[in-house]
Protein backbone atom coordinates (compact mmCIF):
# COMPACT_ATOMS: atom_id res chain seq x y z
CA UNK A 1 0.00 0.00 0.00
CA UNK A 2 2.83 2.30 0.96
CA UNK A 3 4.54 1.56 -2.32
CA UNK A 4 1.33 2.22 -4.16
CA UNK A 5 0.95 5.60 -2.47
CA UNK A 6 4.56 6.42 -3.19
CA UNK A 7 4.30 5.27 -6.75
CA UNK A 8 1.11 7.21 -7.53
CA UNK A 9 2.70 10.68 -7.79
CA UNK A 10 5.43 9.12 -9.88
CA UNK A 11 2.87 7.62 -12.21
CA UNK A 12 0.97 10.88 -12.46
CA UNK A 13 4.17 12.74 -13.22
CA UNK A 14 4.96 10.20 -15.86
CA UNK A 15 1.59 10.49 -17.51
CA UNK A 16 2.00 14.24 -17.48
CA UNK A 17 5.53 14.35 -18.84
CA UNK A 18 5.99 11.17 -20.91
CA UNK A 19 9.37 9.53 -20.51
CA UNK A 20 11.11 10.05 -17.17
CA UNK A 21 14.23 11.30 -18.92
CA UNK A 22 15.35 13.50 -21.76
CA UNK A 23 17.54 12.26 -24.54
CA UNK A 24 19.66 14.00 -27.10
CA UNK A 25 19.69 12.48 -30.54
CA UNK A 26 23.09 12.95 -32.21
CA UNK A 27 23.54 14.07 -35.80
CA UNK A 28 23.39 11.16 -38.18
CA UNK A 29 20.79 9.32 -36.06
CA UNK A 30 17.05 9.24 -36.54
CA UNK A 31 14.65 8.89 -33.61
CA UNK A 32 12.30 6.05 -34.36
CA UNK A 33 8.53 5.98 -34.12
CA UNK A 34 6.78 4.43 -31.17
CA UNK A 35 6.12 1.19 -33.05
CA UNK A 36 9.82 0.49 -32.67
CA UNK A 37 9.93 0.72 -28.90
CA UNK A 38 8.22 -0.57 -25.82
CA UNK A 39 6.15 2.13 -24.15
CA UNK A 40 5.79 0.14 -20.96
CA UNK A 41 9.46 0.78 -20.23
CA UNK A 42 9.45 4.31 -21.62
CA UNK A 43 11.70 3.34 -24.41
CA UNK A 44 13.56 5.55 -26.80
CA UNK A 45 15.27 4.30 -29.94
CA UNK A 46 17.44 6.01 -32.51
CA UNK A 47 19.51 4.54 -35.30
CA UNK A 48 21.92 5.45 -38.06
CA UNK A 49 21.26 4.37 -41.61
CA UNK A 50 23.85 1.60 -41.17
CA UNK A 51 22.34 0.15 -38.02
CA UNK A 52 24.20 1.68 -35.11
CA UNK A 53 21.44 1.86 -32.55
CA UNK A 54 20.90 3.84 -29.37
CA UNK A 55 18.23 2.68 -26.96
CA UNK A 56 17.13 4.05 -23.62
CA UNK A 57 14.81 2.39 -21.17
CA UNK A 58 13.66 3.37 -17.71
CA UNK A 59 12.40 0.96 -15.08
CA UNK A 60 10.99 1.75 -11.68
CA UNK A 61 13.68 1.07 -9.13
CA UNK A 62 11.73 -1.68 -7.44
CA UNK A 63 13.14 -3.70 -5.78
CA UNK A 64 15.41 -0.83 -5.00
CA UNK A 65 19.03 -1.28 -6.01
CA UNK A 66 22.07 0.95 -5.82
CA UNK A 67 24.49 1.55 -8.67
CA UNK A 68 27.11 -0.91 -7.40
CA UNK A 69 24.67 -3.79 -7.20
CA UNK A 70 23.03 -2.88 -10.49
CA UNK A 71 26.38 -2.80 -12.31
CA UNK A 72 27.42 -6.11 -10.83
CA UNK A 73 24.13 -7.76 -11.75
CA UNK A 74 24.32 -6.35 -15.27
CA UNK A 75 27.90 -7.52 -15.74
CA UNK A 76 27.04 -11.00 -14.52
CA UNK A 77 24.06 -11.24 -16.80
CA UNK A 78 25.70 -10.01 -19.98
CA UNK A 79 29.22 -11.35 -19.49
CA UNK A 80 28.63 -14.70 -17.83
CA UNK A 81 25.01 -15.24 -18.74
CA UNK A 82 25.13 -14.20 -22.36
CA UNK A 83 28.80 -14.80 -23.13
CA UNK A 84 29.75 -11.26 -24.09
CA UNK A 85 33.37 -10.23 -23.62
CA UNK A 86 33.76 -7.37 -21.17
CA UNK A 87 36.07 -4.89 -22.86
CA UNK A 88 35.86 -1.90 -20.57
CA UNK A 89 34.12 -0.58 -17.49
CA UNK A 90 34.22 3.15 -16.79
CA UNK A 91 32.37 5.90 -15.00
CA UNK A 92 29.76 7.90 -16.89
CA UNK A 93 28.26 11.26 -16.00
CA UNK A 94 24.85 12.43 -17.19
CA UNK A 95 24.07 16.03 -18.10
CA UNK A 96 22.81 16.83 -14.59
CA UNK A 97 25.87 15.30 -12.94
CA UNK A 98 24.26 11.95 -12.10
CA UNK A 99 26.98 9.36 -11.97
CA UNK A 100 26.62 6.05 -13.69
CA UNK A 101 28.75 3.29 -15.15
CA UNK A 102 29.38 2.30 -18.75
CA UNK A 103 30.17 -1.32 -19.57
CA UNK A 104 31.47 -2.03 -23.07
CA UNK A 105 31.14 -5.52 -24.42
CA UNK A 106 32.12 -7.35 -27.57
CA UNK A 107 30.34 -10.27 -29.15
CA UNK A 108 30.71 -12.22 -32.37
CA UNK A 109 27.43 -12.38 -34.26
CA UNK A 110 26.89 -14.29 -37.52
CA UNK A 111 27.39 -10.99 -39.32
CA UNK A 112 30.74 -10.37 -37.63
CA UNK A 113 32.16 -8.73 -34.53
CA UNK A 114 29.74 -6.40 -32.76
CA UNK A 115 30.13 -3.94 -29.93
CA UNK A 116 27.50 -3.42 -27.27
CA UNK A 117 27.61 -0.88 -24.46
CA UNK A 118 25.27 -0.29 -21.56
CA UNK A 119 25.41 2.81 -19.43
CA UNK A 120 23.41 2.48 -16.26
CA UNK A 121 22.20 5.31 -14.06
CA UNK A 122 20.36 4.61 -10.82
CA UNK A 123 18.23 7.10 -8.92
CA UNK A 124 15.88 6.56 -6.01
CA UNK A 125 12.95 6.06 -8.36
CA UNK A 126 14.41 4.82 -11.61
CA UNK A 127 16.94 2.55 -13.20
CA UNK A 128 18.00 3.94 -16.57
CA UNK A 129 19.64 1.80 -19.22
CA UNK A 130 21.30 3.56 -22.13
CA UNK A 131 22.35 0.96 -24.67
CA UNK A 132 24.35 1.33 -27.85
CA UNK A 133 25.31 -1.35 -30.32
CA UNK A 134 26.15 -2.31 -33.84
CA UNK A 135 28.88 -3.72 -36.02
CA UNK A 136 32.29 -3.10 -34.54
CA UNK A 137 33.68 -0.89 -37.30
CA UNK A 138 30.50 1.18 -37.54
CA UNK A 139 30.25 1.68 -33.80
CA UNK A 140 33.87 2.74 -33.66
CA UNK A 141 33.20 5.34 -36.36
CA UNK A 142 30.15 6.61 -34.50
CA UNK A 143 31.77 6.51 -31.06
CA UNK A 144 31.95 10.30 -30.62
CA UNK A 145 28.25 10.65 -31.36
CA UNK A 146 27.42 7.84 -28.95
CA UNK A 147 29.53 9.42 -26.20
CA UNK A 148 27.79 12.72 -26.87
CA UNK A 149 24.40 11.05 -26.47
CA UNK A 150 25.46 9.62 -23.12
CA UNK A 151 26.87 12.89 -21.84
CA UNK A 152 23.65 14.69 -22.79
CA UNK A 153 21.31 12.16 -21.29
CA UNK A 154 19.18 13.80 -18.63
CA UNK A 155 17.46 11.62 -16.02
CA UNK A 156 14.36 12.92 -14.31
Amino acid at each position, binding site marked *: MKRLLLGLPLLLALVACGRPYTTATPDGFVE*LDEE*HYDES*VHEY*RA*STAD*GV*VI*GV*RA*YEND*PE*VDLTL*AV*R*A*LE*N*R*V*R*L*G*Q*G*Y*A*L*LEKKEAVARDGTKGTTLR*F*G*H*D*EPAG*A*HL*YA*VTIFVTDDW*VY*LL*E*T*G*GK*KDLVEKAQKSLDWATQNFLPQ
Partner: protein
Amino acid sequence: MWFQRAHALLVLLFVLACSACSVGAKHADAAAPAYGGGAYPTTAMDDAPSGEAEAPMREEAGPAQLDMDGAKDSFVNAKQPAPEPAPGKGKPQPGPGQQGAGADSKRSPILIYTADYTMSVFEVQKSLDAVEALAKSAGGYLARRDDRSITVRVPAEKFQDVIAGVEKVGDVLHRNVVSEDVTAEYRDLEIQLANHLALRSRMEKLLEKANKVEEALQIERELGRITGEIERVKGRLKLLTDLAQFSTITVSFAPRTQESVQEGPFVLPLPWLNSLGLNRLMNLR
Protein backbone atom coordinates in the same frame (compact mmCIF):
# COMPACT_ATOMS: atom_id res chain seq x y z
CA MET B 1 75.59 -85.32 -20.66
CA TRP B 2 72.36 -85.69 -18.67
CA PHE B 3 73.92 -83.52 -16.01
CA GLN B 4 74.54 -80.72 -18.52
CA ARG B 5 70.95 -80.85 -19.78
CA ALA B 6 69.52 -80.79 -16.27
CA HIS B 7 71.73 -77.84 -15.47
CA ALA B 8 70.54 -75.96 -18.57
CA LEU B 9 66.92 -76.67 -17.64
CA LEU B 10 67.43 -75.40 -14.09
CA VAL B 11 68.99 -72.21 -15.41
CA LEU B 12 66.05 -71.73 -17.78
CA LEU B 13 63.55 -72.18 -14.96
CA PHE B 14 65.45 -69.69 -12.83
CA VAL B 15 65.41 -67.13 -15.63
CA LEU B 16 61.67 -67.55 -16.19
CA ALA B 17 61.04 -67.09 -12.48
CA CYS B 18 63.11 -63.90 -12.53
CA SER B 19 61.16 -62.68 -15.55
CA ALA B 20 57.84 -63.09 -13.73
CA CYS B 21 59.08 -60.96 -10.84
CA SER B 22 60.85 -58.31 -12.83
CA VAL B 23 57.91 -55.92 -13.38
CA GLY B 24 57.85 -53.34 -10.66
CA ALA B 25 61.10 -54.54 -9.16
CA LYS B 26 62.91 -51.91 -7.21
CA HIS B 27 66.31 -52.79 -8.56
CA ALA B 28 68.06 -51.03 -11.33
CA ASP B 29 70.75 -52.26 -13.52
CA ALA B 30 74.02 -50.40 -13.30
CA ALA B 31 73.85 -49.96 -17.03
CA ALA B 32 70.37 -48.38 -16.82
CA PRO B 33 69.85 -44.82 -18.09
CA ALA B 34 71.66 -42.73 -15.56
CA TYR B 35 69.42 -39.95 -14.25
CA GLY B 36 71.45 -40.16 -11.02
CA GLY B 37 74.46 -38.89 -12.87
CA GLY B 38 72.76 -35.66 -13.78
CA ALA B 39 70.74 -35.54 -16.94
CA TYR B 40 67.49 -37.32 -17.67
CA PRO B 41 68.20 -39.40 -20.71
CA THR B 42 66.59 -38.50 -23.97
CA THR B 43 68.04 -41.73 -25.26
CA ALA B 44 66.91 -43.81 -22.34
CA MET B 45 65.01 -46.06 -24.71
CA ASP B 46 68.15 -47.27 -26.42
CA ASP B 47 69.02 -50.82 -25.65
CA ALA B 48 71.92 -51.22 -23.29
CA PRO B 49 74.92 -53.08 -24.68
CA SER B 50 74.60 -56.73 -23.83
CA GLY B 51 77.97 -56.81 -22.15
CA GLU B 52 76.87 -54.19 -19.64
CA ALA B 53 73.44 -55.62 -19.13
CA GLU B 54 74.73 -58.25 -16.81
CA ALA B 55 76.38 -55.81 -14.48
CA PRO B 56 75.41 -56.14 -10.83
CA MET B 57 72.17 -54.61 -9.57
CA ARG B 58 72.12 -51.67 -7.18
CA GLU B 59 69.53 -50.21 -4.86
CA GLU B 60 67.62 -47.15 -6.04
CA ALA B 61 65.41 -44.78 -4.10
CA GLY B 62 61.72 -45.66 -4.37
CA PRO B 63 59.09 -43.14 -5.41
CA ALA B 64 58.25 -42.33 -1.79
CA GLN B 65 61.66 -40.79 -1.39
CA LEU B 66 61.40 -38.58 -4.42
CA ASP B 67 61.02 -34.83 -4.22
CA MET B 68 57.29 -34.33 -4.52
CA ASP B 69 57.30 -30.51 -4.27
CA GLY B 70 55.60 -30.20 -7.58
CA ALA B 71 52.79 -32.59 -6.77
CA LYS B 72 49.57 -32.11 -8.68
CA ASP B 73 48.20 -28.60 -8.43
CA SER B 74 44.90 -27.45 -9.83
CA PHE B 75 43.67 -23.89 -10.23
CA VAL B 76 40.09 -23.44 -11.27
CA ASN B 77 38.73 -19.96 -11.07
CA ALA B 78 38.35 -16.93 -13.22
CA LYS B 79 40.92 -14.17 -12.69
CA GLN B 80 43.11 -16.41 -10.60
CA PRO B 81 46.84 -15.95 -11.01
CA ALA B 82 48.84 -18.37 -13.08
CA PRO B 83 50.22 -21.34 -11.18
CA GLU B 84 53.33 -20.86 -9.15
CA PRO B 85 56.09 -23.24 -10.07
CA ALA B 86 57.25 -25.77 -7.55
CA PRO B 87 58.83 -24.13 -4.50
CA GLY B 88 62.34 -23.00 -5.16
CA LYS B 89 61.87 -23.11 -8.91
CA GLY B 90 61.54 -19.94 -10.92
CA LYS B 91 59.99 -21.47 -14.00
CA PRO B 92 58.18 -24.66 -14.90
CA GLN B 93 60.54 -27.57 -14.85
CA PRO B 94 62.01 -28.53 -18.19
CA GLY B 95 61.15 -31.95 -19.43
CA PRO B 96 63.33 -35.00 -19.31
CA GLY B 97 66.40 -34.46 -21.37
CA GLN B 98 66.47 -30.78 -20.52
CA GLN B 99 67.59 -31.17 -16.94
CA GLY B 100 70.84 -29.56 -16.03
CA ALA B 101 73.71 -31.57 -14.66
CA GLY B 102 74.43 -31.60 -10.95
CA ALA B 103 73.31 -33.24 -7.77
CA ASP B 104 70.04 -31.25 -7.55
CA SER B 105 68.75 -32.49 -10.85
CA LYS B 106 68.64 -36.02 -9.51
CA ARG B 107 65.59 -35.05 -7.49
CA SER B 108 64.05 -32.48 -9.82
CA PRO B 109 60.45 -33.39 -10.47
CA ILE B 110 59.23 -34.11 -13.96
CA LEU B 111 56.14 -32.00 -14.45
CA ILE B 112 53.54 -31.98 -17.18
CA TYR B 113 51.78 -28.64 -17.55
CA THR B 114 48.40 -28.26 -19.20
CA ALA B 115 46.11 -25.25 -19.38
CA ASP B 116 42.52 -24.95 -20.57
CA TYR B 117 40.85 -21.61 -21.11
CA THR B 118 37.32 -20.64 -21.99
CA MET B 119 36.91 -17.15 -23.36
CA SER B 120 34.02 -14.97 -24.41
CA VAL B 121 33.00 -15.16 -28.02
CA PHE B 122 34.39 -11.98 -29.51
CA GLU B 123 36.66 -11.65 -32.53
CA VAL B 124 37.34 -15.36 -32.36
CA GLN B 125 39.42 -15.71 -35.53
CA LYS B 126 41.63 -12.81 -34.53
CA SER B 127 42.08 -14.29 -31.07
CA LEU B 128 42.86 -17.75 -32.48
CA ASP B 129 45.53 -16.16 -34.67
CA ALA B 130 46.95 -14.37 -31.65
CA VAL B 131 47.18 -17.58 -29.59
CA GLU B 132 48.86 -19.40 -32.46
CA ALA B 133 51.34 -16.56 -32.95
CA LEU B 134 52.12 -16.52 -29.22
CA ALA B 135 52.90 -20.24 -29.27
CA LYS B 136 55.08 -20.02 -32.36
CA SER B 137 57.02 -17.04 -31.06
CA ALA B 138 57.79 -19.10 -27.94
CA GLY B 139 59.16 -21.98 -30.01
CA GLY B 140 55.95 -23.98 -29.86
CA TYR B 141 53.62 -25.26 -32.52
CA LEU B 142 49.98 -25.64 -33.45
CA ALA B 143 48.48 -28.99 -32.45
CA ARG B 144 44.83 -28.46 -33.45
CA ARG B 145 42.58 -25.64 -34.52
CA ASP B 146 38.94 -25.32 -35.52
CA ASP B 147 36.44 -22.46 -35.75
CA ARG B 148 36.01 -22.05 -32.02
CA SER B 149 39.08 -23.55 -30.33
CA ILE B 150 42.80 -24.00 -30.60
CA THR B 151 45.38 -26.28 -28.98
CA VAL B 152 49.04 -25.34 -28.99
CA ARG B 153 52.15 -26.99 -27.57
CA VAL B 154 54.86 -24.78 -26.12
CA PRO B 155 58.24 -25.53 -24.53
CA ALA B 156 57.74 -26.11 -20.80
CA GLU B 157 60.09 -23.31 -19.81
CA LYS B 158 57.96 -20.83 -21.79
CA PHE B 159 54.65 -22.08 -20.38
CA GLN B 160 54.05 -19.25 -17.93
CA ASP B 161 55.05 -16.57 -20.41
CA VAL B 162 52.64 -17.96 -22.97
CA ILE B 163 49.67 -18.31 -20.63
CA ALA B 164 50.27 -14.75 -19.43
CA GLY B 165 50.00 -13.69 -23.06
CA VAL B 166 46.94 -15.86 -23.69
CA GLU B 167 45.09 -14.20 -20.82
CA LYS B 168 45.48 -10.85 -22.56
CA VAL B 169 43.97 -12.13 -25.78
CA GLY B 170 40.37 -12.03 -24.58
CA ASP B 171 37.94 -12.02 -21.69
CA VAL B 172 38.71 -15.21 -19.76
CA LEU B 173 35.54 -16.79 -18.38
CA HIS B 174 37.16 -19.94 -17.02
CA ARG B 175 40.66 -21.29 -16.61
CA ASN B 176 42.05 -24.61 -15.49
CA VAL B 177 45.82 -24.87 -15.14
CA VAL B 178 47.27 -28.17 -13.95
CA SER B 179 50.77 -29.38 -13.26
CA GLU B 180 51.05 -33.14 -12.96
CA ASP B 181 54.10 -34.71 -11.33
CA VAL B 182 55.09 -37.83 -13.26
CA THR B 183 58.50 -38.27 -11.66
CA ALA B 184 57.61 -41.51 -9.89
CA GLU B 185 56.07 -43.06 -12.98
CA TYR B 186 59.00 -41.99 -15.14
CA ARG B 187 61.60 -43.46 -12.81
CA ASP B 188 59.63 -46.63 -12.36
CA LEU B 189 59.46 -47.04 -16.12
CA GLU B 190 63.20 -46.48 -16.40
CA ILE B 191 63.80 -49.24 -13.87
CA GLN B 192 61.40 -51.56 -15.66
CA LEU B 193 63.16 -50.86 -18.94
CA ALA B 194 66.59 -51.55 -17.51
CA ASN B 195 65.41 -54.82 -15.99
CA HIS B 196 63.74 -55.93 -19.19
CA LEU B 197 66.84 -55.14 -21.23
CA ALA B 198 69.06 -57.07 -18.85
CA LEU B 199 66.67 -59.99 -18.90
CA ARG B 200 66.49 -59.99 -22.67
CA SER B 201 70.26 -60.04 -22.86
CA ARG B 202 70.42 -63.06 -20.59
CA MET B 203 67.71 -64.81 -22.56
CA GLU B 204 69.59 -64.24 -25.79
CA LYS B 205 72.67 -65.87 -24.31
CA LEU B 206 70.59 -68.79 -23.11
CA LEU B 207 69.12 -69.13 -26.58
CA GLU B 208 72.60 -69.48 -28.00
CA LYS B 209 73.27 -72.34 -25.60
CA ALA B 210 69.94 -74.13 -26.10
CA ASN B 211 70.37 -77.66 -27.43
CA LYS B 212 66.75 -78.72 -27.91
CA VAL B 213 64.19 -77.16 -30.25
CA GLU B 214 61.63 -77.12 -27.43
CA GLU B 215 63.97 -75.15 -25.21
CA ALA B 216 64.75 -72.74 -28.01
CA LEU B 217 61.05 -72.19 -28.76
CA GLN B 218 60.26 -71.59 -25.13
CA ILE B 219 63.05 -69.08 -24.81
CA GLU B 220 61.98 -67.33 -28.01
CA ARG B 221 58.42 -67.05 -26.78
CA GLU B 222 59.69 -65.43 -23.64
CA LEU B 223 61.97 -63.18 -25.66
CA GLY B 224 58.98 -62.03 -27.71
CA ARG B 225 57.00 -61.19 -24.60
CA ILE B 226 59.91 -59.26 -23.09
CA THR B 227 60.50 -57.37 -26.33
CA GLY B 228 56.83 -56.35 -26.37
CA GLU B 229 57.16 -55.09 -22.82
CA ILE B 230 60.30 -53.16 -23.74
CA GLU B 231 58.48 -51.45 -26.62
CA ARG B 232 55.52 -50.58 -24.41
CA VAL B 233 57.75 -49.03 -21.74
CA LYS B 234 59.76 -47.17 -24.34
CA GLY B 235 56.59 -45.75 -25.84
CA ARG B 236 55.30 -44.56 -22.49
CA LEU B 237 58.67 -42.99 -21.64
CA LYS B 238 58.70 -41.22 -24.99
CA LEU B 239 55.19 -39.89 -24.43
CA LEU B 240 56.01 -38.63 -20.93
CA THR B 241 59.18 -37.01 -22.23
CA ASP B 242 57.23 -35.23 -24.95
CA LEU B 243 54.46 -34.10 -22.59
CA ALA B 244 56.99 -32.77 -20.10
CA GLN B 245 59.06 -30.95 -22.70
CA PHE B 246 56.06 -29.36 -24.39
CA SER B 247 53.16 -28.05 -22.34
CA THR B 248 49.67 -28.14 -23.82
CA ILE B 249 47.45 -25.07 -23.90
CA THR B 250 43.87 -25.19 -25.16
CA VAL B 251 41.73 -22.09 -25.67
CA SER B 252 38.03 -22.40 -26.44
CA PHE B 253 35.63 -19.61 -27.25
CA ALA B 254 32.22 -20.44 -25.91
CA PRO B 255 29.49 -18.71 -23.95
CA ARG B 256 28.41 -20.25 -20.68
CA THR B 257 24.84 -19.13 -21.05
CA GLN B 258 22.86 -22.05 -19.77
CA GLU B 259 25.07 -23.42 -17.03
CA SER B 260 25.82 -19.99 -15.58
CA VAL B 261 22.25 -18.75 -15.60
CA GLN B 262 20.95 -21.91 -14.03
CA GLU B 263 23.54 -22.53 -11.39
CA GLY B 264 24.76 -19.03 -10.57
CA PRO B 265 23.30 -17.05 -7.70
CA PHE B 266 23.49 -13.83 -9.69
CA VAL B 267 20.19 -14.05 -11.59
CA LEU B 268 18.29 -11.37 -9.75
CA PRO B 269 14.57 -10.93 -10.38
CA LEU B 270 15.05 -7.42 -11.70
CA PRO B 271 12.84 -6.73 -14.71
CA TRP B 272 15.41 -4.58 -16.45
CA LEU B 273 17.93 -7.43 -16.48
CA ASN B 274 15.77 -9.58 -18.68
CA SER B 275 16.13 -7.85 -22.00
CA LEU B 276 19.76 -6.90 -22.36
CA GLY B 277 21.86 -7.59 -25.41
CA LEU B 278 22.28 -6.86 -29.05
CA ASN B 279 19.39 -9.00 -30.25
CA ARG B 280 16.74 -6.88 -28.65
CA LEU B 281 18.52 -3.57 -29.17
CA MET B 282 19.05 -4.08 -32.85
CA ASN B 283 15.68 -5.61 -33.61
CA LEU B 284 13.88 -2.63 -35.11
CA ARG B 285 11.24 -4.45 -37.11
